[in-house]
């Protein structure tokens, strides 16, 4: 499955992650740093005015664009093609892979350089092209590290956040690196290694932060300069975009680029904000001669017109990851999806289905920090609850066990005799498991609970009995509640 990271079921992935002390520390520290930078560049930057007004501006633009997505996609593709570019609409992952493969084959291309792109991770483009015999090189520093170390991203903006400098050094040693573990020296090695590759690649592949419908332009928001290399020297450029990642015109691009740069990395603008428009490049030395745009649905349209449509407002800033207490403790890989954190828990079931990702919405304390952090006001925690409702109602998993359990509970709860008998029997049945007044190793459905905390042992005396006794001791006669809410002495 393209979006999948690792092979572990969710809870096993969590167990593995929380025992990885280095990863947990690295993620916590990165979260603190990124959150602090974001706050300084948003609510803490007086020159911006009211940050909430910016968020409302972002929400307004994203909502309107999504509500008229077909119109703006038509406009984008018309303008892109009118300037000489080639547009392909891919309904599925396979269609997107096949189109890119077809282009690469037709160019007889072997050397491919890529800049960082979540959507190409989502559609497993590297694997598809490697199967064609191509050498696909990730050129974003973090993605390069992950590729050399055969690892996957664990954060949307800082994909190698789970690796320390020693691990990076070990990875680079596979390429003949013999220097220290100083980040500066490691980055210089990547610069030297990749420079020649950029200049001699056949095809450059990028993602797309935003497309501008009005002119058929592509905007890339980056820091390292690798995306500029990827879009300048190969003869062919292929840009892959999620179908929702567009704005009507340059005016809206301003607002969304501002929200993205400040919310993701706390910069006023990233080092490079690059806007590329197809043009006649016959005489151009440093630009592609052939420019392709692949617009990908791959499950996104399932959210349109539903309560999950706001999830498509996302601009992939990862601000929600950087405030999430669950992400902080389990990191990115435990989610089992290339989209981790709160937005991952919302998006993954939409794109990949409940069968694979139906448990992810439970990876949340519903504290709503994600909703508060989102620059385009996606009600993330509310969407997580809606996913849980779907899951409980049976989406993506057989309910046989649950149905039997609930039916049994229904029968017991309806009959006063059975209910009372159950209450009496519970302490007796559970007695072998009780130590010092609590259960620390529960069986079956109790297991996930007692794995994290003790379960208080059921009391021999239930609340009704205790209350009756308490009232009697206090000298209050037992009362019953009448239909109108008043109380009268029990007979």
């Amino acid at each position, binding site marked *: 499955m393209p979006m999948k990271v690792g092979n572990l079921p969710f809870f096993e992935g969590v167990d593995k992650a929380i025992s990885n002390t280095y990863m947990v520390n690295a993620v916590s*520290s990165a979260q603190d740093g*990124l959150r602090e930078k974001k706050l300084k560049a948003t609510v803490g930057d007086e020159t911006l005015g009211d940050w909430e007004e*910016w968020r*409302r501006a972002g929400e*307004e633009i994203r909502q*309107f664009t999504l509500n*008229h*997505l*077909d*119109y703006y996609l*038509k406009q984008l593709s018309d303008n*892109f093609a*009118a*300037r*000489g570019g*080639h547009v392909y*609409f891919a*309904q599925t992952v396979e269609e997107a892979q096949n*189109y890119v493969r077809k282009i690469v084959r037709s160019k007889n291309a072997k050397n491919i350089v890529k800049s960082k792109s979540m959507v190409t991770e989502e559609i497993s483009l590297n694997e598809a092209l490697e199967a064609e015999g191509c050498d696909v090189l990730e050129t974003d*520093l*973090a993605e390069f*590290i992950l590729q050399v170390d055969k690892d996957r991203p664990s954060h949307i903006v800082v994909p190698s*956040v789970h690796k320390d400098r020693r691990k*990076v050094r070990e990875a680079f040693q596979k390429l003949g690196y013999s220097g220290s573990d100083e980040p500066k020296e490691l*980055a210089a090695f990547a*610069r030297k290694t990749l*420079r020649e590759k950029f200049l001699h690649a056949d095809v450059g592949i990028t993602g797309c932060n935003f497309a501008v419908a009005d*002119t058929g*332009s592509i905007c890339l928001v980056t820091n*390292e*300069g*690798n995306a*500029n*290399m990827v*879009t*300048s020297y190969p003869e062919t450029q292929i840009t892959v975009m999620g*179908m929702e990642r567009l704005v*009507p015109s*340059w005016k809206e*691009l*301003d607002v969304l680029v*501002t929200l993205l740069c400040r919310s993701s990395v706390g910069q006023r*603008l990233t*080092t*490079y*904000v*690059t*806007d*590329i*428009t197809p*043009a006649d490049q*016959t*005489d*151009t*030395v*440093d*630009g592609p001669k052939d*420019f392709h745009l692949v617009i990908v*649905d791959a499950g996104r349209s399932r959210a*349109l017109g539903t309560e999950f449509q706001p999830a498509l407002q996302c601009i992939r800033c990862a601000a929600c990851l950087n405030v999430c207490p669950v992400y902080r403790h389990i990191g990115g890989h435990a989610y089992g999806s290339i989209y981790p954190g709160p937005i991952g828990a919302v998006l993954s079931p939409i794109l990949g289905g409940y069968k694979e990702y139906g448990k992810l919405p439970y990876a949340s304390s519903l504290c709503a920090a994600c909703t508060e952090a989102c620059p385009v006001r996606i009600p993330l925690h509310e969407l997580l609850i809606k996913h849980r409702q779907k899951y409980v109602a049976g989406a993506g998993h057989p309910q046989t066990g649950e149905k039997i359990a609930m039916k049994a509970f229904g029968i017991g709860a309806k009959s006063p005799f059975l209910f009372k008998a159950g209450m009496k029997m519970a302490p007796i049945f559970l007695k072998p498991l009780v130590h010092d007044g609590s259960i620390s190793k529960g069986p079956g459905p109790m297991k996930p609970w007692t794995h994290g905390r003790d379960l208080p042992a059921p009391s021999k005396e239930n609340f009704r009995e205790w209350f009756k006794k308490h009232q009697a001791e206090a000298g209050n006669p037992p009362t019953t509640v009448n239909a109108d809410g008043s109380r009268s002495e029990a007979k």
Partner: protein
Amino acid sequence: MSNGTIENRDQFLETIAQKLGHAAGEAVTTPEWKHQPQWAVYENKTPEQLVEIIKKASESIHTQVVETNSADLAESLNHLIDSYGGGAILATSDKRFSEWGLSDVLEARHVAIWDTLKGHENIDLAAHANIGLSICDVMLAESATAGLFNDKDKARSVSLLPVTSIVLVPKSTIVPRLTQAMALVQKQVDADESPAPYINFISGPSNSADIEMRLVVGVHGPVKVAYLIINDR
């Protein structure tokens, strides 16, 4: 570039329109947005105040800012080039260099000028140059960002491949922030002009914090960046 093509569109858009509950491609007018906080940022700042904002913002992006006036431009540029070690220099093909009387300096320094007729040789020159010289088209004060409207002559490689990028910034191109630059592009588009094929907003040297969140300055693009602001008003 060849003639453009569009594949697989109709069914794709039909699916979206059905989900949204309207006819595919139904025409719509982008509204006047209710929320537009962007215009109030640095509203009514004088050019001098905007220069001060650039200087302050440059500090946090590791970029040197030098101010000069038209009369002293050649001397200031020479001095700046020396301070970055001179060596091989490449400049974009931009008539503003000669309009500002810089031809002599460029010649004396043996500065190579981007020339599309020389093809790939330009890229080799850029890759081995110590300094690239470009001229800014719109300068954003808020983030100390040089906006370059790159094309075949005002080539992108000049501010990308050399170790050092020196950008000449006419004071008349300074605007408060990205908002005004985007409005400028939009104005061109509304007048049926094509935007430059490669509009590059550059804020300082390339960098990365991908290893333990430690900032490394100089990754794939230039390691050093300097702005030479020219008082041309």
